[in-house]
């Protein structure tokens, strides 16, 4: 039985790309409310681990649970509990900053998506640029919008994969 304070639990995780073993029996436990950092050099397996934990990639072996939900069998439930901010800003350049945030808020079924979008725009200091198309944003502004999109809806588990790149 899993403890209620555990939000990420990984047991004996293994993953290979063809013949190349990328993850060799990884065990991890992350407690609610904590900041957990996974460090490693290039090719150590960080991004692969994050992809499996966020349901983007299937593990070969092992048991991975997010908030008690299995990443393979209950991937829909897992996706409700997480957000992922990746190495490259995943914002729509043809929409404005405000539209990007409202869209994610609505996809998350937030009852007050518009209000939450405005609050986050203020937090990341993008209110002045909120109604401009993201294609006109600088790299740093896109990054801040990307981070805001990860925070909207207050997901219990937030993944950052090198969110400061650029």
């Amino acid at each position: 039985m899993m403890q209620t304070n555990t939000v990420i639990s990984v047991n004996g995780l293994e993953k290979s790309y063809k013949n190349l073993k990328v993850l060799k029996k990884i065990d991890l436990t992350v407690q609610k409310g904590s900041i957990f950092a996974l460090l490693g050099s290039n090719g150590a397996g960080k991004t692969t681990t994050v992809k499996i934990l966020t349901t983007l990639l299937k593990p070969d072996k092992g048991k991975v649970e997010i908030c008690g939900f299995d990443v393979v069998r209950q991937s829909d439930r897992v996706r409700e509990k997480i957000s992922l901010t990746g190495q490259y800003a995943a914002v729509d350049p043809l929409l404005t900053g405000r539209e990007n945030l409202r869209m994610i808020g609505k996809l998350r079924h937030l009852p007050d998506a518009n209000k939450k979008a405005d609050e986050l725009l203020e937090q990341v200091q993008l209110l002045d640029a909120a109604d401009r198309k993201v294609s006109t944003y600088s790299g740093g502004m896109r990054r801040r919008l990307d981070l805001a999109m990860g925070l909207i809806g207050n997901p219990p588990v937030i993944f950052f994969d090198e969110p400061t790149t650029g």
Partner: protein
Amino acid sequence: MEEAEQLADQIAILHEGKIVAEGTPTQLKKLLPRGHIELKFRHEQDVHRAHDILGGDYVNLHREHHMLKVTTDGSIKQLTAILNRLEHAGIPVDECLQKQPTLEDVFLTIIGENYERADA
């Protein structure tokens, strides 16, 4: 790396698909008991003299402008021995700082050890 050191409650180091170390930043830094001391001198010639005097016993010496970095085991005993030796030789030390290992030092050491193990 600095972000992790300042912000993370728990850190895991992943190397070649395995978790090779895990703990709080403080716990990880204790894996590496060695730190170094920085000795600053007013005159450049004192740096050279101190380097010559300490050179025999402390292998890991690093000389910079007006400063000597000596790797130690982090103990007060070793620090005192170094300062006494300089005192006896009549070399005035302007400033002395004891530095703890950074997370980066720990990371590089752990990864380095694993490379050696893989080679053996």
